């Protein structure tokens, strides 16, 4: 658990005492005890939430692809969850799962469902009809068509959804601090209450930086798994 650092008069540096915007010495000192654990927790929160959300939404999308009438209820439900303000959703879960990481994870998973479900489904549906006809005419079974044709072709949309989900979850996970002091939200909230600027800036920068880095990595991943999308016409 991350503890907000109380500027200790007499022992702290001038920078901290004056509450300047960014004190490198404080950051260096508190990287190990405060910032790094918070960062790692934050990554864990995100990975679990997006991972679970992805599995759930992929299953839902595969079902909706096969059975038309699944789409509307799932889309509606995930949209309702998405519309509920995060702080409220956390609070609504607290009576059921307490002030724990579980509460936070359930909410975060819920928030990823809408974007992941819609993108997964749109991706599955994006196969050109003539490709489907050719596959069927050549003697591929439905399953073979799904695994060898539809899913690979759905990858661009799927990864695009993952990008949005990951970035949104990293941002949303900071609000988790209102429930349990996990992730980068903890130091930010604590520092906010004490008006300690360096910590706010440091933790905030980490959160934003993490989101941007994750986004860039996913863009690279997308290019790697879809070589045909960037193939240029050979003259």
């Amino acid at each position: 658990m991350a503890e907000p650092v109380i500027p200790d008069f007499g022992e702290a540096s001038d920078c901290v005492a004056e509450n300047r915007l960014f004190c490198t010495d404080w950051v260096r000192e508190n990287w190990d005890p405060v910032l790094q654990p918070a960062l790692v927790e934050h990554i864990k929160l995100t990975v679990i939430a997006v991972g679970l959300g992805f599995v759930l939404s992929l299953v839902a999308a595969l079902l909706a692809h096969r059975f038309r009438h699944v789409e509307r209820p799932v889309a509606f439900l995930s949209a309702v969850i998405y519309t509920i303000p995060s702080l409220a959703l956390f609070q609504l879960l607290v009576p059921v799962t307490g002030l724990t990481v579980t509460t936070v994870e359930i909410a975060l998973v819920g928030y990823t469902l809408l974007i992941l479900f819609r993108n997964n489904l749109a991706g599955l549906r994006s196969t050109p009809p003539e490709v489907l006809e050719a596959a069927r005419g050549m003697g591929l079974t439905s399953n073979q068509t799904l695994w060898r044709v539809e899913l690979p072709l759905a990858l661009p949309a799927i990864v695009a959804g993952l990008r949005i989900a990951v970035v949104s979850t990293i941002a949303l996970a900071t609000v988790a601090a209102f429930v349990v002091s996990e992730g980068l939200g903890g130091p930010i909230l604590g520092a906010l209450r004490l008006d300690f600027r360096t910590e706010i800036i440091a933790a905030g920068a980490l959160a934003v930086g993490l989101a941007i880095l994750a986004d860039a990595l996913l863009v690279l991943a997308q290019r790697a798994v879809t070589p045909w999308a960037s193939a240029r016409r050979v003259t």
Partner: protein
Amino acid sequence: MRAPRQAVEIVFDHATKRYPGRTTPAVDDLSMTIPAGEVCCLVGPSGGGKTTAMKLVNRLVELTSGDVRVDGKSVTALDETTLRRGIGYVIQQVGLFPHMTVAENVATVPKLLGWSKRETDERTDELLDLVDLPARDYRSRYASQLSGGERQRVGLARALAADPPLMLMDEPFGALDPITRTRLQNELLRIQDELRKTIIFVTHDIDEAILVGDRIAILREGGVLAQYDTPEQLLAHPADDFVARFVGADRGLKRLSLTTLDEVELEPANGLVGPLLDGQTTLRDALSAMLTDGARAVVVDSGDGTRKQLTLDRLAELLR
């Protein structure tokens, strides 16, 4: 290296397809036999049921009554997936898998059938060369990098990959520009010369059917067979007004394009002066040359040193 497969005969036996809620059938009591190794063109107006009839063979459309037999066995005897893996299927928009390279596309059915990697690779290269796309250059390209004509060639190669004894082609060249279309029609003839598959070729273009087909089946609205004959017979003796109108008022001229100069008996030239043509020229082009030059005869180079002549009168005689 696998031994090439023999082509098979296709029989339509009172084949009928009725869609629920429609009064007229899509295919109505179709009976005809397509001999092994021949190209049968299904021609007709839109809604004439030609594509539906073709799809009865690989069961993309299921029969309502009657039967379709491939190599003596009913198409309903096999499970449909197994059936389709033994039939080459080429469609107008090709349907190349965008996420696979050319080689991977061609290898699709061999892979499904469990061929070894070495066999598959050999076969892929062989086919790409056959369709005039040098394997070295084209193996690793993606569909988005190919022109329309190149894509359809890959489609052809892909359909031929597992060496199916029969092929179904649904307006395969319809989406191409006229020049590419002509080129691919001739490619198909060349490949067919080599491979001798049984092919059902659907088209709405009677000229294409005449060029490509060994036999032509004309279906009218409601999926009824109007006439099933060789191109010569069809053009010379259309069964009724509908067929006559469909083949066109210029069927006389069309018939002329079926024969080349070296296929007919001609008188020696005897010093006649006129446009000089070689033996490969069609009678139609010969007539065109006469009209253009204002001559009443052309001189033919027989290739063995002698010259023959073709007069307008002789031409008319040949048409009778």
